[in-house]
Protein backbone atom coordinates (compact mmCIF):
# COMPACT_ATOMS: atom_id res chain seq x y z
CA UNK A 1 0.00 0.00 0.00
CA UNK A 2 1.25 3.46 -0.80
CA UNK A 3 1.88 5.96 1.97
CA UNK A 4 -0.39 8.48 0.26
CA UNK A 5 -3.35 6.10 0.50
CA UNK A 6 -2.75 5.40 4.20
CA UNK A 7 -2.47 9.10 4.76
CA UNK A 8 -5.85 9.78 3.19
CA UNK A 9 -7.69 6.96 4.86
CA UNK A 10 -6.42 7.75 8.37
CA UNK A 11 -6.40 11.51 7.88
CA UNK A 12 -2.74 11.94 8.68
CA UNK A 13 -1.32 15.39 8.14
CA UNK A 14 1.98 15.91 6.36
CA UNK A 15 4.58 18.08 8.04
CA UNK A 16 7.51 17.31 5.73
CA UNK A 17 8.66 14.95 3.01
CA UNK A 18 5.50 15.32 0.93
CA UNK A 19 7.54 14.45 -2.16
CA UNK A 20 8.01 10.86 -0.97
CA UNK A 21 4.41 9.90 -0.36
CA UNK A 22 4.40 7.48 -3.26
CA UNK A 23 6.66 5.21 -1.18
CA UNK A 24 5.38 1.70 -0.77
CA UNK A 25 4.74 0.80 2.87
CA UNK A 26 5.69 -2.80 3.64
CA UNK A 27 4.74 -3.00 7.29
CA UNK A 28 4.75 -1.12 10.54
CA UNK A 29 6.94 -0.65 13.58
CA UNK A 30 6.14 1.12 16.85
CA UNK A 31 8.73 2.18 19.41
CA UNK A 32 9.90 5.28 21.24
CA UNK A 33 13.41 4.02 21.89
CA UNK A 34 15.49 4.90 18.87
CA UNK A 35 18.11 2.32 19.76
CA UNK A 36 15.35 -0.29 19.44
CA UNK A 37 14.18 1.08 16.10
CA UNK A 38 17.74 0.93 14.78
CA UNK A 39 17.96 -2.68 15.92
CA UNK A 40 14.53 -3.96 14.85
CA UNK A 41 12.66 -1.85 12.30
CA UNK A 42 12.73 -3.07 8.72
CA UNK A 43 13.09 -1.29 5.41
CA UNK A 44 9.76 0.10 4.22
CA UNK A 45 8.16 0.14 7.66
CA UNK A 46 5.90 2.98 8.69
CA UNK A 47 7.19 4.02 12.11
CA UNK A 48 4.76 5.12 14.82
CA UNK A 49 6.32 7.08 17.68
CA UNK A 50 5.92 9.97 20.07
CA UNK A 51 9.57 11.01 19.96
CA UNK A 52 9.94 14.34 18.20
CA UNK A 53 13.71 14.77 18.48
CA UNK A 54 15.62 15.34 15.25
CA UNK A 55 17.40 12.00 15.57
CA UNK A 56 14.19 10.30 14.37
CA UNK A 57 14.89 11.60 10.87
CA UNK A 58 18.41 10.19 10.80
CA UNK A 59 17.14 6.84 12.04
CA UNK A 60 14.31 6.71 9.47
CA UNK A 61 16.72 7.64 6.73
CA UNK A 62 19.35 5.12 7.78
CA UNK A 63 16.82 2.29 8.08
CA UNK A 64 15.08 3.34 4.84
CA UNK A 65 11.72 3.47 6.55
CA UNK A 66 8.67 4.51 4.53
CA UNK A 67 7.86 7.33 6.91
CA UNK A 68 7.22 8.46 10.47
CA UNK A 69 3.90 9.16 12.16
CA UNK A 70 3.90 11.22 15.35
CA UNK A 71 0.96 10.36 17.58
CA UNK A 72 -1.11 12.18 20.21
CA UNK A 73 -1.03 15.40 18.18
CA UNK A 74 2.66 15.86 18.91
CA UNK A 75 4.40 18.27 16.58
CA UNK A 76 8.00 17.89 15.39
CA UNK A 77 10.65 20.18 16.83
CA UNK A 78 11.96 22.87 14.48
CA UNK A 79 15.26 21.04 13.89
CA UNK A 80 13.37 17.84 13.21
CA UNK A 81 11.21 19.51 10.59
CA UNK A 82 14.25 20.97 8.86
CA UNK A 83 16.06 17.64 8.79
CA UNK A 84 12.96 15.88 7.44
CA UNK A 85 12.76 18.40 4.61
CA UNK A 86 16.46 18.06 3.87
CA UNK A 87 16.34 14.28 3.80
CA UNK A 88 12.89 14.13 2.23
CA UNK A 89 11.63 11.77 4.92
CA UNK A 90 7.81 11.72 5.14
CA UNK A 91 6.87 13.10 8.53
CA UNK A 92 3.18 12.80 9.37
CA UNK A 93 1.13 13.61 12.45
CA UNK A 94 -2.03 12.16 13.91
CA UNK A 95 -4.20 13.32 16.81
CA UNK A 96 -4.82 9.69 17.78
CA UNK A 97 -2.99 7.91 20.60
CA UNK A 98 -0.56 5.23 19.43
CA UNK A 99 -2.73 2.23 20.34
CA UNK A 100 -5.66 3.50 18.31
CA UNK A 101 -3.61 4.54 15.30
CA UNK A 102 -1.76 1.23 15.18
CA UNK A 103 -5.08 -0.63 15.39
CA UNK A 104 -6.36 1.27 12.40
CA UNK A 105 -3.15 0.71 10.45
CA UNK A 106 -3.44 -2.98 11.13
CA UNK A 107 -7.02 -2.97 9.90
CA UNK A 108 -5.78 -1.46 6.64
CA UNK A 109 -3.63 -4.54 6.20
CA UNK A 110 -0.28 -3.43 7.60
CA UNK A 111 1.49 -5.98 9.74
CA UNK A 112 4.31 -5.80 12.24
CA UNK A 113 5.56 -9.22 11.18
CA UNK A 114 7.12 -10.09 7.85
CA UNK A 115 6.41 -13.46 6.29
Amino acid at each position, binding site marked *: MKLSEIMQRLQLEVRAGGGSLSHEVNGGYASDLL*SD*VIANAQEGDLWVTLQTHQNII*AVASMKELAGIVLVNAREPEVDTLEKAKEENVPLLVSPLPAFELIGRLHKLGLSGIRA
Partner: protein
Amino acid sequence: MRVLYADLHIHTCLSPCAEREMAPSRVVREAKERGLDVIAICDHNSAENVVAVRGAAAKVGLAVIGGMEITSREEAHVLGLFPADSGLVAAQNLVYAHLAGENDPDTFGEQLVMDKQDKVIGQNRRLLIGATDLTLEEVVRTIHEFGGIAIASHVDRPSFSVVSQLGFIPQELGLDGVEVSSWNALPLRGEWPVICSSDAHRPAEIGTEYTCFLIEAPTVSEIRMALTQIDGRRILAEG
Protein backbone atom coordinates in the same frame (compact mmCIF):
# COMPACT_ATOMS: atom_id res chain seq x y z
CA MET B 1 49.45 19.08 39.32
CA ARG B 2 47.82 16.34 41.36
CA VAL B 3 46.23 13.00 40.70
CA LEU B 4 42.68 13.13 42.05
CA TYR B 5 40.18 10.30 42.27
CA ALA B 6 36.65 11.38 41.43
CA ASP B 7 33.23 9.79 41.52
CA LEU B 8 31.12 12.43 39.84
CA HIS B 9 27.72 10.76 39.93
CA ILE B 10 26.36 9.98 43.38
CA HIS B 11 22.71 10.12 44.48
CA THR B 12 21.49 10.88 47.99
CA CYS B 13 18.30 10.05 49.87
CA LEU B 14 16.72 12.94 47.95
CA SER B 15 16.43 10.68 44.91
CA PRO B 16 13.36 8.47 45.34
CA CYS B 17 15.22 5.47 43.94
CA ALA B 18 18.18 5.84 46.33
CA GLU B 19 18.38 4.26 49.75
CA ARG B 20 17.63 6.25 52.87
CA GLU B 21 21.16 5.36 54.02
CA MET B 22 22.50 7.75 51.38
CA ALA B 23 22.52 10.48 54.00
CA PRO B 24 25.07 13.30 53.81
CA SER B 25 27.57 12.16 56.44
CA ARG B 26 27.29 8.52 55.35
CA VAL B 27 28.02 9.42 51.74
CA VAL B 28 31.03 11.42 52.86
CA ARG B 29 32.32 8.63 55.13
CA GLU B 30 32.03 5.99 52.42
CA ALA B 31 33.69 8.25 49.86
CA LYS B 32 36.63 8.87 52.19
CA GLU B 33 36.97 5.18 53.02
CA ARG B 34 37.22 4.38 49.33
CA GLY B 35 39.97 6.96 48.87
CA LEU B 36 38.06 9.44 46.75
CA ASP B 37 39.25 13.06 46.62
CA VAL B 38 36.21 14.56 44.96
CA ILE B 39 32.58 13.58 44.53
CA ALA B 40 29.65 15.19 42.75
CA ILE B 41 26.14 14.96 44.15
CA CYS B 42 23.72 14.45 41.26
CA ASP B 43 20.20 13.72 42.40
CA HIS B 44 17.35 13.44 39.93
CA ASN B 45 16.15 16.89 38.87
CA SER B 46 17.07 18.45 42.22
CA ALA B 47 20.08 19.64 44.18
CA GLU B 48 18.64 20.18 47.62
CA ASN B 49 21.12 17.95 49.48
CA VAL B 50 24.28 19.40 47.97
CA VAL B 51 24.89 21.94 50.72
CA ALA B 52 24.38 19.31 53.45
CA VAL B 53 26.85 16.88 51.88
CA ARG B 54 29.38 19.66 51.46
CA GLY B 55 28.83 20.62 55.08
CA ALA B 56 29.42 17.04 56.17
CA ALA B 57 32.64 16.96 54.14
CA ALA B 58 33.98 20.29 55.34
CA LYS B 59 36.61 18.96 57.72
CA VAL B 60 37.64 15.71 56.10
CA GLY B 61 39.34 16.85 52.91
CA LEU B 62 36.73 15.69 50.45
CA ALA B 63 35.64 18.09 47.73
CA VAL B 64 31.92 18.10 46.91
CA ILE B 65 30.74 19.40 43.55
CA GLY B 66 27.11 20.45 43.23
CA GLY B 67 25.22 18.86 40.39
CA MET B 68 21.97 17.40 39.14
CA GLU B 69 20.96 14.55 36.90
CA ILE B 70 18.38 16.16 34.65
CA THR B 71 15.82 14.11 32.70
CA SER B 72 15.00 15.44 29.24
CA ARG B 73 11.61 15.01 27.59
CA GLU B 74 13.05 12.10 25.62
CA GLU B 75 13.79 10.53 29.01
CA ALA B 76 17.53 10.80 28.56
CA HIS B 77 19.62 11.58 31.65
CA VAL B 78 22.24 14.33 31.59
CA LEU B 79 24.58 15.29 34.42
CA GLY B 80 25.08 18.99 35.05
CA LEU B 81 28.08 19.86 37.24
CA PHE B 82 28.19 23.46 38.41
CA PRO B 83 31.13 25.56 39.61
CA ALA B 84 28.93 27.82 41.75
CA ASP B 85 25.85 27.11 43.82
CA SER B 86 24.15 30.22 42.41
CA GLY B 87 24.19 28.63 38.95
CA LEU B 88 23.12 25.29 40.37
CA VAL B 89 20.13 26.80 42.14
CA ALA B 90 19.12 28.81 39.08
CA ALA B 91 19.30 25.66 36.95
CA GLN B 92 17.31 23.76 39.56
CA ASN B 93 14.58 26.39 39.53
CA LEU B 94 14.35 26.19 35.77
CA VAL B 95 14.13 22.40 35.95
CA TYR B 96 11.38 22.68 38.58
CA ALA B 97 9.41 24.99 36.29
CA HIS B 98 9.51 22.29 33.62
CA LEU B 99 8.80 19.29 35.83
CA ALA B 100 5.18 18.30 36.38
CA GLY B 101 3.65 16.00 38.93
CA GLU B 102 3.79 15.13 42.61
CA ASN B 103 5.76 12.28 44.14
CA ASP B 104 3.99 9.30 45.66
CA PRO B 105 6.50 8.11 48.30
CA ASP B 106 4.83 4.69 48.62
CA THR B 107 5.29 4.02 44.93
CA PHE B 108 8.55 5.73 44.03
CA GLY B 109 10.28 6.23 47.37
CA GLU B 110 10.86 9.06 49.79
CA GLN B 111 12.67 12.23 48.77
CA LEU B 112 14.43 13.33 51.93
CA VAL B 113 16.15 16.65 52.38
CA MET B 114 18.69 16.43 55.22
CA ASP B 115 21.10 18.64 57.06
CA LYS B 116 24.79 17.83 57.42
CA GLN B 117 24.12 15.73 60.52
CA ASP B 118 21.67 13.54 58.56
CA LYS B 119 18.65 15.01 60.26
CA VAL B 120 15.58 15.07 57.98
CA ILE B 121 14.61 18.69 57.47
CA GLY B 122 12.08 18.22 54.70
CA GLN B 123 10.62 16.15 51.92
CA ASN B 124 10.68 17.21 48.31
CA ARG B 125 7.11 16.83 46.98
CA ARG B 126 7.87 17.10 43.29
CA LEU B 127 7.88 14.08 41.00
CA LEU B 128 11.67 13.98 40.78
CA ILE B 129 11.64 10.59 39.03
CA GLY B 130 9.65 12.17 36.18
CA ALA B 131 10.85 13.76 32.98
CA THR B 132 11.02 17.49 32.37
CA ASP B 133 9.46 18.84 29.19
CA LEU B 134 12.85 20.22 28.14
CA THR B 135 14.38 18.77 24.99
CA LEU B 136 17.84 17.27 25.27
CA GLU B 137 19.21 20.37 23.52
CA GLU B 138 17.46 22.63 26.01
CA VAL B 139 18.85 20.66 28.94
CA VAL B 140 22.41 21.03 27.67
CA ARG B 141 21.84 24.70 26.88
CA THR B 142 20.44 25.30 30.38
CA ILE B 143 23.44 23.66 32.04
CA HIS B 144 25.82 25.77 29.96
CA GLU B 145 23.85 28.94 30.50
CA PHE B 146 24.31 28.59 34.26
CA GLY B 147 28.02 27.91 33.96
CA GLY B 148 27.95 24.13 34.26
CA ILE B 149 29.38 21.25 32.26
CA ALA B 150 27.03 18.76 30.64
CA ILE B 151 27.81 15.06 30.58
CA ALA B 152 25.46 12.44 29.16
CA SER B 153 24.79 9.84 31.86
CA HIS B 154 25.69 6.16 31.53
CA VAL B 155 25.61 6.08 27.72
CA ASP B 156 26.43 2.37 27.79
CA ARG B 157 23.16 1.47 29.51
CA PRO B 158 19.96 0.24 27.84
CA SER B 159 17.66 2.70 29.61
CA PHE B 160 17.49 6.45 30.23
CA SER B 161 20.65 7.15 28.27
CA VAL B 162 20.96 9.43 25.26
CA VAL B 163 21.97 6.40 23.24
CA SER B 164 19.09 4.16 24.31
CA GLN B 165 16.48 6.90 23.86
CA LEU B 166 17.83 8.60 20.75
CA GLY B 167 19.88 5.89 19.09
CA PHE B 168 23.07 7.93 18.89
CA ILE B 169 24.52 11.13 20.31
CA PRO B 170 23.75 14.15 18.13
CA GLN B 171 27.09 15.71 17.08
CA GLU B 172 25.79 19.26 17.39
CA LEU B 173 24.53 18.76 20.94
CA GLY B 174 27.58 20.39 22.51
CA LEU B 175 28.07 17.87 25.30
CA ASP B 176 31.24 18.30 27.33
CA GLY B 177 31.59 14.58 27.79
CA VAL B 178 29.89 11.25 28.25
CA GLU B 179 29.77 8.94 31.24
CA VAL B 180 30.10 5.18 31.14
CA SER B 181 29.21 2.88 34.01
CA SER B 182 32.30 0.75 33.56
CA TRP B 183 35.62 1.36 31.84
CA ASN B 184 35.18 -2.03 30.19
CA ALA B 185 32.06 -0.77 28.45
CA LEU B 186 33.78 2.01 26.56
CA PRO B 187 31.80 2.12 23.34
CA LEU B 188 32.59 5.46 21.80
CA ARG B 189 35.93 5.46 20.05
CA GLY B 190 37.10 8.80 21.32
CA GLU B 191 34.41 11.08 19.92
CA TRP B 192 33.76 12.62 23.33
CA PRO B 193 35.74 12.88 26.54
CA VAL B 194 34.73 9.93 28.71
CA ILE B 195 34.36 9.74 32.47
CA CYS B 196 33.33 6.74 34.52
CA SER B 197 31.33 6.93 37.72
CA SER B 198 29.35 4.78 40.08
CA ASP B 199 25.85 6.31 39.81
CA ALA B 200 25.64 5.11 43.42
CA HIS B 201 22.16 4.70 44.90
CA ARG B 202 23.35 2.83 47.99
CA PRO B 203 26.42 3.25 50.20
CA ALA B 204 28.25 0.14 49.00
CA GLU B 205 28.22 1.46 45.43
CA ILE B 206 30.07 4.70 46.16
CA GLY B 207 33.44 4.78 44.42
CA THR B 208 33.01 1.36 42.82
CA GLU B 209 33.70 3.19 39.55
CA TYR B 210 35.64 6.42 39.32
CA THR B 211 37.68 8.68 37.10
CA CYS B 212 41.27 9.61 37.75
CA PHE B 213 42.07 13.25 36.92
CA LEU B 214 45.42 15.02 36.61
CA ILE B 215 44.41 18.53 37.68
CA GLU B 216 45.46 21.38 39.96
CA ALA B 217 42.41 21.37 42.22
CA PRO B 218 39.13 19.50 42.65
CA THR B 219 36.97 22.09 40.90
CA VAL B 220 34.56 22.13 37.98
CA SER B 221 36.77 24.50 36.03
CA GLU B 222 39.76 22.17 36.42
CA ILE B 223 37.63 19.19 35.39
CA ARG B 224 36.46 21.14 32.38
CA MET B 225 40.10 21.71 31.41
CA ALA B 226 40.88 18.02 31.89
CA LEU B 227 38.01 17.04 29.60
CA THR B 228 39.46 19.19 26.83
CA GLN B 229 43.10 18.50 27.76
CA ILE B 230 44.12 22.10 28.35
CA ASP B 231 47.40 23.13 30.03
CA GLY B 232 48.43 19.62 30.97
CA ARG B 233 45.15 18.72 32.66
CA ARG B 234 43.79 15.38 31.57
CA ILE B 235 42.02 12.19 32.46
CA LEU B 236 44.55 9.52 33.33
CA ALA B 237 44.27 5.97 32.12
CA GLU B 238 41.27 4.44 33.77
CA GLY B 239 41.47 2.88 37.18
